[in-house]
Each structure stands twice: as C-alpha cells, then as structure tokens.
C-alpha cells in the first residue's frame, strides 16, 4: 500500500469506511475515554510550530503488514502469522487473548475486544456479511480487506489471468476523496504501488526497527 501524505487532508473518511466494511464495533463514550476504541486505520495528527505558523500533519496509520512482523513470533498459539502473499494474518478463532502481539507492535495498530461487541439498532442491520464478527477477548487489526483481496483473486482466476491493478481495492483506498491511497501488488513491476514506492519521496514508518513494513509513505513534497 502507498499513502501520499502530501494529499491527505485528515478527513478520516477512510476510518469510517473501514469500520463499516469490517464490522468494527463502537465501544461507547466511556470505553473510548479509557482508550479502548477500535480503529483499524486511524489518522494521527501532529502539530508543528507555534501560532500563527502552525502546520498540521496528518498520517493515516494502519497495520503495516511487516515482512518481519514482531507481533508474529510472540503469539504462543499461532493466531497471527505471515501468509504466502505477504499479509500479516490474524486468526480470530485461535486467539486466546494474551495481548502479547499488541505489546510488541511498535506501530500500536492492534486492537483488543475488551468486551463482547454490541451494535445498537439499527447498526446491527448494517453488518457486512463477508466479514466475521469478533467476540470479546480476541485481538483484531487491519487485514488489507482480505475479503476483497480474495474476491479480486477469485475474479482473476476465473478470467485466467494474473491479478492486476484495480482488481483489489480496500475500503479505505476506495473512499479516499483526494486519492491519497493506492493498493496493489508490489511484486508486479507494472503496478502503481510498485512505481510509486520507488519515488524519492518514499519512506517507511519506523524503518530503523527492521520490521520491513509494506506500507510506503510519500512525504516531504512541501
């Protein structure tokens, strides 16, 4: 995934789209005040400078699907592992809730269901049938909309061709109004993400930790 920070306005449409697509529960104001709200993608906001020269920086942060993810080896029950496609998978049914993975994620992108999720009517009618609903005591995080990835792959297989740009669009990428987000196959040299990740604006978050994140940020255009 490539995210162009010079285009991001901080509108948080991606946050809303992700929560609708992936059945993310709302925890309520008290729980949110305790720091338990679940946002698989969030827009981090930093302010630089003093008034009147203040600059607001927006950075959408989601699971980086690190090549060498620190969250994976610490799970004692294999509830999170690396797929052949390079995704960091989270298996809800296997998670026993040690929360070790969340403690080892330097990006703080993992979210825990402290209670059984509840959807007040009529939101319970808006659940996406293609995504499972998680129970309390289980860890969850961005999956790069794996349900859409599978759909795109199935379509490509039916048409007897490789997956190409446009087959798979996660909810956040689809919704971004400034087209700040791109998604595709980095192994395909023709894909947009492949070309953009070679830009001289490209950088990765917390690169020095050696996690090899698969989300590329384009920055420093101004």
């Amino acid at each position, binding site marked *: 995934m490539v995210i162009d920070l010079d285009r991001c306005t901080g509108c948080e449409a991606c946050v809303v789209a992700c929560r609708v697509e992936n059945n993310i529960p709302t925890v309520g104001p008290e729980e949110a005040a305790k720091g338990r709200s679940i946002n698989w993608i969030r827009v981090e906001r930093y302010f630089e400078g003093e008034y009147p020269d203040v600059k607001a920086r927006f950075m959408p942060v989601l699971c980086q699907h690190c*090549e*060498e*993810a620190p*969250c994976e080896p610490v799970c004692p029950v294999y509830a*999170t*592992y690396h797929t052949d496609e390079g995704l960091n998978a989270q298996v809800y049914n296997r998670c026993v809730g040690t929360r070790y993975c969340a403690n080892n994620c330097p990006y703080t992108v993992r979210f825990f269901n402290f209670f059984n999720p509840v959807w007040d009517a009529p939101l319970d009618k808006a659940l996406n049938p293609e995504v499972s609903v998680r129970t309390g005591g289980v860890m969850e995080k961005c999956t790069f909309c794996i349900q859409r990835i599978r759909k795109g792959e199935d379509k490509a297989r039916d048409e007897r061709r490789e997956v190409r740009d446009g087959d798979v669009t996660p909810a956040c990428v689809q919704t971004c109004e400034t087209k700040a987000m791109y998604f595709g196959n980095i192994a395909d040299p023709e894909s947009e993400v492949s070309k953009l990740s070679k830009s001289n604006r490209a950088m990765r978050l917390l690169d020095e930790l050696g996690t090899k994140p698969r989300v590329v940020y384009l920055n420093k255009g101004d």
Partner: protein
Amino acid sequence: MTVNELGVFDSPQEAIAALRELKREGVPASSITVMSSEPLHLETDGAPASRIGGFAIAGGLIGAGFALVLTSWTSRQVGLVTGGMPIISPWAFGIVVFELTALGAILATLGRMIYEAGLARPGALIAYDRAVADGRIVVSVNCVDDAACEIARNILTPS
C-alpha cells in the same frame, strides 16, 4: 520362612556396640538393617553404589531428545512463518529443550530414588518399630533358621 528379630536401642553408641557383636558372631551384614529417625552416617561396607546420578543424566538426555522432536516436528507440521524466523528456530527451541532436559532429570531422580530406597511398594513397612519416631535406633536382623534367630535375639534383646 525368614523371621525378623528386632532390637531397640536408646542411643547410636549402644546400637553400634550391638552391631559389632553381631558381626563378631558372624551374622552377614546384608541381613542387618539399622533404622533411625535421622541419618547416622555409619560406614556402609559392601552396599551397592547408587545409580541415581546416572539415571538423572539419562533422564535429562531423554527429556532433551523429546523436546527436540516435539519442537522441530510440530513446527514443521504447522509450517507457518512468524516474524521471518525460520520454521526450525534453534535458539528459541533450545530454551524448551533446556527446560525439558531438567524435567527429565528431575523425574528420573525421583523415580530411581523411590525404587532404590524400596519405597512405595506393598510390604515396605515391615520389620519396623515405632520406637524410631521417638529417636531410638532399631536394629533388625533377618534370620533364616532358629539357630541364627537365637544368636540375634541374644544380642539384640539382652536380659
């Protein structure tokens, strides 16, 4: 039919004196048992050496082997990549091997000790007198015939 003759003594010195007499009368050392409420550290001549140490090492090796197989085989069965670590991660698995080595040694020590001490079997508490609990020394002689029993009885229960 073997009989056990028991003698109860108030102090180790008296018991040792009786032991010397028994030896002088030619009673074989293997038929004499000295029981006490704490170790007396008498010289045990001809007693077989303990193999608890050897069994502990063997138990440790078995534990190590089991751990190696458990970790390596199951990781290959599951076959999932975590954090870019190899499927067989020797450093990480080595820790489990270490622990199970120790566990093997511990269980082997316990088992062998119980076996060598003659514990945990029916009839373990024979030829015994509760006087041991009072701090006295009980000497028992396992005699095969009446003559031997007579000798033993004279030494163990004088008067």
